C-alpha cells in the first residue's frame, strides 16, 4: 500500500479543526432537538467516523441506525442514476425526527434520492448533517442543514473517507494528487 505522503497534496482540515467543528455541530444539533427524540442515520461506510464522533458530542437522547447505499452507476462520485439500498434502516422512521449523517456531499444526487425515499416513510422531520460540502460540484439542489466545512473541488481522503478502501483511518482530511497516486501500489 502506497504511503499517503507520496500523493498527499495538502492537509485540508487538520485533526484539531475537525474535532472543534464536530463539537460545535454537536452543540448546535443538541440545541435544535432539545426535548425531542432523534434518530441519527449513519451512511456507511464513509460516515462512520464522523457519526461516531458527532454522536459522542450530542447531549440529546438519540438512537443510531445505519444505511448502506450504492449507485447503479459507475464510480462513487460519478453517479447520476438511482440508488440501491444494500442495508436498510432497522428503525421505522414514521413520525420520528431523522438526522442523516454523511461524510461528504458532492453532486447531491445520491443524497437527493435518499431523502426522497426516506420522505415516503413520513418522518416527523428529516434533516441532513454533512462534514464536507463540495458546493461547486452540486448538480441537484439539496437542503443541507448542518455543514462542517465547505471544501474546494479536490479529491479528498481521510477521517472516514477512503481511496480504494484505504486511508479512512487518518485523523485529518487531505487532498490527493491523483497523478502521484498508484492504485494497489
Amino acid at each position, binding site marked *: 500500500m502506497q504511503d499517503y505522503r507520496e500523493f498527499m497534496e495538502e492537509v485540508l482540515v487538520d485533526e484539531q479543526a475537525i474535532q472543534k467543528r464536530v463539537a460545535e455541530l454537536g452543540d448546535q444539533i443538541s440545541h435544535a432537538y432539545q426535548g425531542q427524540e432523534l434518530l441519527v442515520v449513519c451512511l456507511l*461506510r464513509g460516515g462512520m*467516523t464522523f457519526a461516531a464522533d458527532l*454522536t*459522542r458530542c450530542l447531549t440529546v437522547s438519540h*438512537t*443510531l441506525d*445505519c444505511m448502506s447505499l450504492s449507485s447503479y452507476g459507475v464510480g462513487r462520485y460519478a453517479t447520476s442514476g438511482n440508488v440501491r439500498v*444494500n*442495508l436498510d434502516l432497522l428503525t421505522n422512521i414514521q413520525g420520528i425526527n431523522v438526522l442523516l449523517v454523511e461524510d461528504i456531499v458532492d453532486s447531491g444526487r445520491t443524497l437527493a434520492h435518499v431523502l426522497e425515499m426516506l420522505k415516503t416513510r413520513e418522518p416527523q422531520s428529516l434533516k441532513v448533517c454533512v462534514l464536507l460540502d463540495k458546493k461547486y460540484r452540486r448538480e441537484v439542489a439539496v437542503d443541507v442543514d448542518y455543514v462542517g466545512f465547505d471544501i474546494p473541488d479536490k479529491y479528498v481522503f481521510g477521517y472516514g473517507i477512503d481511496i480504494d*478502501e484505504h486511508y479512512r483511518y487518518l485523523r485529518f482530511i487531505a487532498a490527493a494528487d491523483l497523478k502521484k497516486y498508484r492504485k494497489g501500489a
Partner: protein
Amino acid sequence: MQDYHEFLAEVLIDESTLQKRIRELAAEINRDYQGEDLLLICILRGGIVFMVDLMRQITVPHAMDCMALTSYGVGARASSGNIRMSLDLQTNIEGKNVLLVEDIVDSGHTLTHVLEMLKTRNPKSLKVCALLDKAGRRELPVPIHYRGFTIPNKFVFGYGLDLDEYYRNLPFVAVVDPNKYKPSV
C-alpha cells in the same frame, strides 16, 4: 428518555482507561501485521464506536468493511440458532488477513457462526478483536486474539453498546441497575 444517571449502577470502564487500552490493542495489531495488508470487519451497530477509535490507531495499511447480522431466534445476544446476514461484506476476503472487530463477546454463538461462515471464503488469516469479553457467559469456545477487557456477567451499556437502542454514544462502559431502568415505550 430516562437519564442514565438514574439507573447507572457503576462505571465499569472509564473513558481514559478505554482509550489507553485501545491504543495498546492497536500497538499489538500494528506489530503482528507489520508488512501485511489487513481488512478490518466491523459488526454493526455495536462495534462502530470501537472500530472508529481502534482504526485511527492502526498504522499498518488496512481497509475496513462492515457486516450486519441478525439472528433468526429471539434477541441477538441470547441466540443459539443460525445467523442471518443483513449486510454482507463488499470485499472478497479470499487470501486476505481478516480481523473481526466486535464490541462484546458473550455466549460465543454469534461469533462462532460468523467465523465458520467467513472461513468458507478462504481468508489468509482470520482473527478476532473484542473490546469486552463476558467470559463467564461463554457457551462455545471462541478464539479471541485481541481482548480489551474481561468483564463480569453484568448488564452493560455505553461506548457503542445500547440499551434499547439508546446510550451508544456514552464515552465509557457502565453497568445498568435493572431495578431502576425503565425502558421507554
